[in-house]
């Protein structure tokens, strides 16, 4: 087990290195550079060479990259070109909002997906299966921003309710905070639930054909017990994997929900940074998100060993 963990940790090194190269080089390929943009805005240096020197963009590419990686290793993600604030501080300030939204969305996704997937699996090809599956796929087929717009407009017409423009942190007023996040989280959860539901259904179908389930039926166990004790426990592992894979899609979805519901999270921050070519912020957020996704997926893989004693790491 410890050798497996060590090997997985070592494999993280090239992946993380590739992430930094990708993040660093792709951003520099974006058309419209920051220097021209800054010079067109008032209040910044008028001399192009001086501005490039100030931002450290006059050095060769490999030098900029090496300096960046050196700083990242010390926990320094640089400062924003525009606000001059440290990027890590800005990310950490916005992270709780996106994280809370993502966790709530995952919660709603599971609440919808697990019962739906199980019912759909054990009642395969019945009307119940068809209804559950088409509703789940229906949730996946409607663009999230469209549902959000329809909900906001509908609520404002019929109940004169509009989403609050100011965000209230969880620590200040939990009830107010949750009432603000529940709607975007349910909308995000809807799209998420479809893939988790499909995986739950296929796994339930697969496990139902296993010999030990046949034995359980043969013993005369009631359906409730067969499903709860034998099917569910064994069907859950790939479902956990799908949840891990959905993490990065979920973080992408928060970009849209944050801009519709005016939530000061990382998604909105990233969108603004792309518009303003704020390299350190784009790099910082991408690096932060990608590293987070990779570490969480590693954690999920390691949890398997505890979930299923049959899995042994070689």
């Amino acid at each position, binding site marked *: 087990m410890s050798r497996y963990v060590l090997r997985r940790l070592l494999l993280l090194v090239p992946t993380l290195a590739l*992430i930094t190269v990708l993040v660093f080089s792709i951003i520099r390929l974006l058309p419209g550079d920051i220097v021209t943009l800054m010079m067109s805005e008032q209040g910044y240096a008028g001399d192009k060479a001086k501005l490039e020197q100030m931002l450290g963009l006059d050095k060769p590419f490999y030098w900029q990259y090496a300096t960046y990686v050196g700083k990242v290793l010390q926990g320094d993600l640089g400062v924003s070109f525009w606000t001059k604030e440290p990027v890590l501080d800005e990310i950490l300030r916005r992270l709780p909002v996106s994280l809370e939204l993502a966790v709530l969305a995952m919660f709603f996704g599971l609440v919808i997906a697990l019962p739906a997937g199980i019912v759909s699996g054990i009642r395969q090809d019945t009307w119940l299966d068809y209804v559950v599956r088409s509703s789940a796929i229906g949730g996946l087929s409607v663009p999230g921003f469209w549902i959000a717009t329809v909900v906001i407009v509908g609520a404002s017409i019929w109940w004169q309710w509009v989403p609050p423009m100011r965000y209230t942190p969880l620590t200040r007023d939990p009830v107010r905070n949750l009432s603000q996040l529940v709607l975007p989280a349910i909308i995000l959860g809807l799209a998420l639930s479809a893939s988790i539901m499909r995986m739950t259904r296929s796994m339930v179908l697969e496990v139902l054909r296993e010999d030990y389930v046949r034995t359980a039926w043969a013993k005369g166990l009631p359906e409730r017990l067969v499903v709860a004790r034998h099917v569910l426990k064994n069907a859950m592992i790939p479902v956990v994997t799908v949840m891990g894979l959905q993490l990065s899609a979920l973080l*992408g979805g928060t970009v849209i929900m944050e801009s519709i519901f005016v939530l000061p999270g990382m998604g909105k921050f990233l969108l603004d940074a792309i518009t303003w070519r704020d390299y350190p912020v784009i790099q910082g957020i991408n690096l932060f998100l990608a590293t987070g996704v990779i570490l969480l997926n590693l954690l999920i893989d390691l949890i398997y060993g505890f979930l299923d004693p049959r899995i042994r790491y070689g």
Partner: protein
Amino acid sequence: MFRLIRSKPLGALGGVLILVLVVTALLAPVLAPYDPIKVNSRERLQAPSLNHLLGTDDFGRDILSRVIHGARISMLLGLGAVAISTLLAVIIGIVSGYYGGRIDIVLQRCIDTLMAFPGLVVLLTIMAMLGQGLGNVILALGIGGTAGNARIIRSAVLAVRENQYIEVARATGCQDWRIITRHILPNIAAPIMVVATLGLGVAVLAESALSFLGFGVPPPTPSWGAMLSGSGRTYMIQAPWMAVFPGIAISLAVFGFNMLGDALRDVLDPKLRKGHQ
């Protein structure tokens, strides 16, 4: 055929939806009652009526004609993006799965890296790099969808590679190229088909998200995503039909692709066929 429809009614429903979409896309100029991009300021923001069955937009353009022509754009976009992502994924998946070893390790690390980035973030970055335009959206969606598909195709190749007929082919002196084209490819056609069908839905949906964030197909092209996110959202209270109908069109198309893809997977994967208990 009838047995298949009876056993997979949702898949059949998906198939019908896609058939309607394809026919609409092919016959768009014949079916559309008006020119989809001709501005008519005297008929701005008209509610659905007999003259304009789905109403008109803020430029007085007929929504029904735009939705019909939008089917063309969506099909073009979906097929283009899926062709790119499937081709790249098949090449990467086969090289990685068939040859294995170091090249597999390197390719898999690259895919791990790409998959760690949120899909929408990758799309936004590629679009910011390429600039707006239908061709660029297709390219971005194609590149964005490659990593996930490559992983699925690789696992399919790994499963096929271990079969005895591959061993026999190798023992009889077949070249790698012949084994890949004659034995591996036909046997991984099923997962490729499933991945491509589901990918079409993802592409249509992703285009609408890109449009919403201002990186989609530029006006006046009648793309469903652009219709529902640009002025469609602005006039949502005044003229809800502007965003509602393209929204329904997107949802039905994506629903169709997903249902058809799911049914294909069930039919092509014998393990999931009914017959338990």
